[in-house]
Every structure is written in C-alpha cells, then in structure tokens.
C-alpha cells in the first residue's frame, strides 16, 4: 500500500530533459544556418550511439529498459557532446566520444543520478587529449553540405581550404605568433571575428542564450548557476583586460565565444554532477568560470570549460558539505 502524499505534480525527469532538448533547438538552428548541416549528422550519430549504449548498459545492469530509455537523459548528453565537438569531425570520433560518456562516465559509475563527473565533459576531455588535431578542425562558414558529409564519413581532409580557426584559437595563435607586439585589438580584426564574438558563432551563442532564458523561465534551472558562471567569467576577464587591454580579450569576447554560454545554461546546470545548495551553486559555477578563463588565457587548450567543469565536479561533495543552508528552527536568532 502506498503512503502519503497521494498527489503528485506531473513534472517528470523525461519532461525536464525534453525542455532541455527544446531549449537547445534555437542554438542548433543558428548552427545549421551559419555552418551547414554537418552538425545535424553529428547530433544524429551521437543520439543513436547514446541510445544503443544506454540500452546495452541498462540490460547488462539489469535495469528496466523502457523506463530509463524514455527518460531522454542519454539524448541530452549526446546532443551536448555533438555541440561541443567540431561538426566536421569523422563519424567514429563522435561515436567514440558518446560511448565514453554513456558507458564509462555514466553507467560504470552507477547510471543516472550516480555519475560524479559530467559525462559530456568527460567525453570532450578524452577526445581533446586523444585527438588534439581533429578536435581543432572547425568548419569555415559556408562550407558545402556535400563536403561536410564527406568529411564526417571519413573523406580526405584538405584542411586549410575548409577549416577556420575558432575565435579563441585565432586569438591564442595570434598572441603567440605575434610575440610581444601582438595586440588583441588587431587580432580581432581578423576574419574569424564578428561583431562581438566569433564570426557566425555569435548567432549560435545567441541561440543558446535564448534557450537558456527559456529554461530559466520554465524553472528547469535556477538563476544561481548561469549567473555565477557568466558574472565570474566577465569579472575575471574585466580585471585582466582592464590591467592589460592589449594582451587580454574583452569580457564581451569571452562571454560571446567558445562554450561560455552553452556551459552556463546547459553544461554546468547538470544537476547530477553539480553542486546542489544555493550557495554551493554560486561557488561551483564561479569556480568553473574562473578555471575556464585561466585555461583559456594561460593554458595550452583553446577552451578550458570541460577541464574546469571536471575539476569543479571533484569539489562538489566538499562544497555541498560546507554550504548547507540553515534549517528551519536552527537559524540565527531563532534559538
């Protein structure tokens, strides 16, 4: 016999995941518009791989297949991987990345709700460490659809003709090759840059931001994580840019390029691997943004969000322990 409460609100895990997928659509649409249909193939490959891997793992673990396959959490992971990896990467790369996320990062740690690390970010890190060259090949705007498909299916990669540096990459390369004389202001005049962020990428970022606002509006996510992430990123960038504007990019560029917005609304908001207390969320997101900025500006990788998220994932139990909110009847002034 069941016990009280006998009423339940109708929102389910599946619905939450569905809202997240919906919220990703504007960004994906902008992606296709600016960079062609390659990303759609990647999304499809990742989704199919994720569902297959999820099914096999659930079967092996003796879990109810239908219940957990329908929760859409694997699809969310798959889409986030596809959106983090270059859209013209070979098919096996996205498949491998997705397997990495679903099999290793998710199910080997105990499945839904048990993974200490963000599965999509684990996949990204493994890929960037294992295949740094492939991971740095991003399409130039206006690359033909047939050519994109050919690349994904494993065709010849005449790289210089078809790829372009992402803005953060261009910035890094520019600063390194230019030596002491390089100026951020000059570099950002280059073709990789648009009005405020990367050329073309600005639209994708705008799409993700729109989706993020939708999630906030539907109360799928709270304000703490995205706000702390974006504000910390902006403030850190502002500090260094203010001190040395020639050598450091503006806060606006940092917000509008790379994975900043995607991470703020879709990646660090993964509840399973993130901090859960209100104050803990601020620490978690702020820490991730700070580390990401440091890796971007001083490290060897073009973007550091994946590493930053994993590093902060490790700290979550500690953060949560020290940020427990006061309980009713135990607050100051009530005793």
């Amino acid at each position, binding site marked *: *016999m*069941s*016990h*009280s*409460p*006998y*009423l*339940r*609100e109708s*929102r*389910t*895990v599946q*619905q*939450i995941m569905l809202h997240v997928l919906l919220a990703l659509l504007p960004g994906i649409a902008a992606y296709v518009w600016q960079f062609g249909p390659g990303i759609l193939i990647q999304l499809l490959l990742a989704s199919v791989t994720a569902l297959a891997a999820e099914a096999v793992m659930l079967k092996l673990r003796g879990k*109810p297949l239908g*219940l*957990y396959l329908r*929760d859409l*959490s694997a699809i969310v992971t798959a889409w986030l991987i596809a959106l983090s990896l270059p859209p013209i990467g070979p098919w096996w790369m996205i498949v491998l990345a997705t397997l990495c996320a679903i099999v290793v990062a998710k199910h080997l740690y105990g*499945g*839904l*709700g*048990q993974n200490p690390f963000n599965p999509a970010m684990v996949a990204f890190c493994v890929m960037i460490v294992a295949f740094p060259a492939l991971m740095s090949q991003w399409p130039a705007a206006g690359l033909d659809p047939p050519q994109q498909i050919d690349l994904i299916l494993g065709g010849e990669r005449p790289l210089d003709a078809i790829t372009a540096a992402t803005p953060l990459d261009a910035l890094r390369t520019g600063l390194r090759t230019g030596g002491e004389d390089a100026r951020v202001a000059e570099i950002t005049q280059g073709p990789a840059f648009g009005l405020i962020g990367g050329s073309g990428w600005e639209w994708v970022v705008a799409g993700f931001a729109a989706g993020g606002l939708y999630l906030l509006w539907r109360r799928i996510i*709270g304000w703490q994580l995205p706000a702390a992430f974006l504000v910390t990123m902006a403030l850190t960038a502002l500090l260094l840019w203010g001190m040395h504007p020639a050598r450091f990019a503006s806060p606006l560029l940092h917000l509008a390029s790379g994975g900043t917005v995607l991470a703020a609304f879709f990646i660090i908001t993964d*509840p*399973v691997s*993130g901090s*859960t*207390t209100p104050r803990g969320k601020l620490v978690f997101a702020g820490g991730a943004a700070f580390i990401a900025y440091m890796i971007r500006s001083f490290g060897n990788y073009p973007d550091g969000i994946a590493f930053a998220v994993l590093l902060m994932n490790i700290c979550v139990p500690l953060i*949560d322990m020290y940020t*427990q*909110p*006061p*309980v*009713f*009847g*135990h*607050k100051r*002034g*009530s*005793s």
Partner: protein
Amino acid sequence: MLQKLFTFHGGVKPDSRKDASTCRPIRPLAMPAELVVPLHQSIGGTPRPLVRVGDRVLKGERIGAAEGPVSAAVHAPTSGTVKAVEERTMPHPSGLPASCVVIETDGEDRWIEREPVPWKSMKGDELRDFLRDAGIVGLGGATFPSHIKLRPATAPTHTLVLNGAECEPFITCDDMLMRERADEIVRGAGIMARMLAVERVLIGIEDNKPEAIAAMRAAVDGDIQVVAIPTLYPAGGEKQLLRVLTGVEVAAGRRPLDFGLQCFNVGTAYRVARAIDHAEPLISRIVTVAGNVEEPGNFEVLVGTPIDELLKAGRPRADTDRVLMGGPMMGFALPTTAAPVVKATNCVLAGSPSLLPPPPPEMACIRCGTCADHCPADLQPFELYWFGRSHNFGKAQEYHLFDCIECGCCSYVCPSHIPLVDYFRFTKSEIWARERERAAADIARERFEARNDRQEREKREKAERLAAKADATRKKLAETGAGDGAPPSPAEEAKKALIAAALERAKQQKSSVKARNTENLPADKQAEIDEIEARRARSERRTVEPPEPS
C-alpha cells in the same frame, strides 16, 4: 490595519479542490446504532474507563478519566448502554486495535445534567482541569490536550494564534465551521486569550476561503484580528503559520510558548466555547467527506461513529478503491472503514485510481534539488534520501532528519517519483529502534555491573564479618581459658537464655510464614520445593550453630 506578513521557504500549491464540499451547509448525521469510542484519543496517557458493560450512560457522561499529567477525558457521545469495553481497530495506518467503549445508542440522545460554567470566577487550574475533563484536545490533527497549552508560561505570552489555514486539498471542515459558527470560534478565542493573558489574537486563514474570512471578520472585534494569508501548502503547519503571521521562527525542540506565542486550531476554539457556555464536552466534530463521492460535504459527527456510516452519507462512487483519513498530502489509507471517527478525524476522503493515481515507477534521484526548493523546513531531502538509503543514520541526523514534518512537499514535486517521505519515516523509525536497543543494552549493562558490584561487596562484607566473629570467639576462649573452671556469672547466664529465647522465636516465626501458591502443585514441582526446603533447613542448622572455634 494591515498586518505585515512573513514567508516560509518552499511549499507547494496543489489544486485545492475544496469547492465540492463547501456548497452544502454542515449536515447532521443519522444516529448510528452503535458508537465505538476509543479511550485513547489524545496525545499522552490512555484514560481509564469509568464504565462497565451493561452501564447506562447519558450523552456527555464521562466514560474515561484523564490519566497522567498529559491526557484528556472521553465522553459518551449519546445516551445508551455500554455493550462492551474491548479492543477495536483504530483509524491508524497500523490497523492495530486499542481499548474502546462500545455504546449501543438508545435514540433518545438524552443529555447528562449540565450547568453553566462560571469560568470568569474560576481559578486558572480549576478552569484547565475543567477543560481536561471536558476532553478538549487540539482538533488540528495532533490532538494534544488543550488545557496544558493554556497554562501560562513563565515568560508572558503576547500573541494567541488561531489556525484556520486549512491548507490540505479537499478538507473544508474548518472552512465551514468558520462560515457557519464564527461567533462561537471568536468566543472561544476570547476565553483562551484571557486564560493566557495575551495582548492580541491573530486568526490566520488562507486566502482561498473568502467566505470564511468574511464571516470571521464580521464576528471579531477588539484585539482579535483576522488575517488572510497566501494559499501555500503547508501554511497550516503550526510553525509555518506562526512564521507567516508573526515572523517568529520557533526553534527546533522549543515550544511556541517559549517565544510568547500560542497556537490553536479554530475548531479547538469552538469546542472551548461549547464546553464553557454549554458544558458540552468534546463529543462531536465537523468532518469533511470528499473525493470520489456523489455528495461531498461536511457533517457534524459524533465521536465513535463508524467511518462506514459517515462515508455512506456522502454516497461513494463504485470505483472507490480506498478511503483516507485526512487529506491527500498527509492523510493515510484506512486499514478498515469499520474504524470509528475520532477527535482527530478532520476528513474522510474516498479515493479512486483516477482521483489519487498510483505513483509512477520510482526512478533514480538526479539530485535536481527540486525537493529542497520546496521543503518548508529548509531541509535537503535528496541528501537525507541518500543517507537513509545507505543506512548512514548518523549523517541523516546531522542533516536534521528529525526536523522533517512529513508534509509531503518533497514527494509531491519529485520528478523521479521517489516516495521521499516514506524513506524518511523508515529512517526515523530505524533510528528510534536503534536508540531503544541501545537504551535497553545500556540498562542491561548497568544492571549487570551493579550485580557484580553487589556480589563483590557481599562477599567482602561476609568475609569481614566472619573474621571479626572468629576474632571475638578467639578472644572469648582465651578469656575463659584464663579464668579456668570459674562458673559463668549469673549475668552471662541470663544473657544466654535471652539469646536462646530470641532464636527460638525467630525460628517459629520463620516456619509460620508459608510461601504462596504452594497448593495443588504437580509432583515434580513439589519435589523441587521439598528439596529446596531440606537444603534451607540444613543451611539454617549450620548458621544457627555457632561456628566451631578454629
């Protein structure tokens, strides 16, 4: 004057579904043929029965007297004959039976003689004893004896709060009471305010009950203020309501009285007025019948009425698959509808698979924290769930498991459909069981150690005594040896005779005291006893004779 309101964290807004049962006035219920009045209807001691099988009782006659410091009397709800004093199934999730007085009603409904209560001239204790003997308990659900809460604390009480929030879906008994009997609620509030010597009275009502608010506003005057509070479950929780109305957060483990506050349900205030003005003990209450019934509504129900009969008055639909006592958030499924209505019964809710759908399959917790967002106690339910699941009871307590009020908000919102409250109930009962076990083990250990100590001490004392005696004898022998041949002095002879006589008396006394229950024993027991007797006789002979000088 506008009352400044405060908020509590979290809460949920389930569909209140109260309209169905408020469109009809409170109705009386046909007199049942039999009333089953449980003796234990309040927190605290079980009243001792004052009637025996065959006794005639009158309406309002006390049939159970308050027992112990925390207890309240119970009364015959109508006139009739006591058919039995026996165990009957209680309206409790356990379905366990408890002692009840079963009354066969005579249909006359004849009152015991009643006199108006001169409460203004009564001393505080007298008045409180009167309320205890009138069986007045909190009608909000906890059934705590009201007279105890009306004892002024050492610090002055400044605010009396009446709880008319009624935040659970479906339940409307307080709503209807306030609409129809506002004057008497206010009258009861006035009496309690005077007993506690408070400065002001606040009556908190959720703003989804405009009719009740209007009726109460029309009835109050002076220092009594009706405050509409936002509709947010569980605003009717005592600590939540006090927080909303006064901003005071009653600390864990403390009572509202420690903060100059006291809180009663509006129904309790009504019963206080009835008890004082009409000498009418708590023998009936308003109960909502709602849910899967054709004619939902509120009934004035005698305590002890079988829930079956009450439910019938609401005409339950054919697909009713269970009956709850209380609301859908905190109520429980009755093990049997034969159980009686008790003082705590505020609602009888008929459920059907469509009205109260079975919970969807439980999924893994994704730590989304929705439960924590809605917890009115500011707990982190998902953390407590993990600790409970992993039997990490110490951690669960550290995260304030026992501040959980089991309101059900967390289970209500959980997207993984985890029955969180069930986990908390389990964890709490596990911890209690362990505490009991530990306490029992502590007592056993203490007793064992005390026994060891005693045995050691006795051994030591005996040895000392023997040594002293032997010493004395040796000295005596040495003395008599020194006075060789000298006859014992007459004084000594007299002393010896006295001792001998005393010993003889003692012996006789011992043999005259006989053990009880020694007749008609089976042969083996008799043999055992004989053997023990023989052994005792032998040992007595040994101790009576003076020890041989060594």
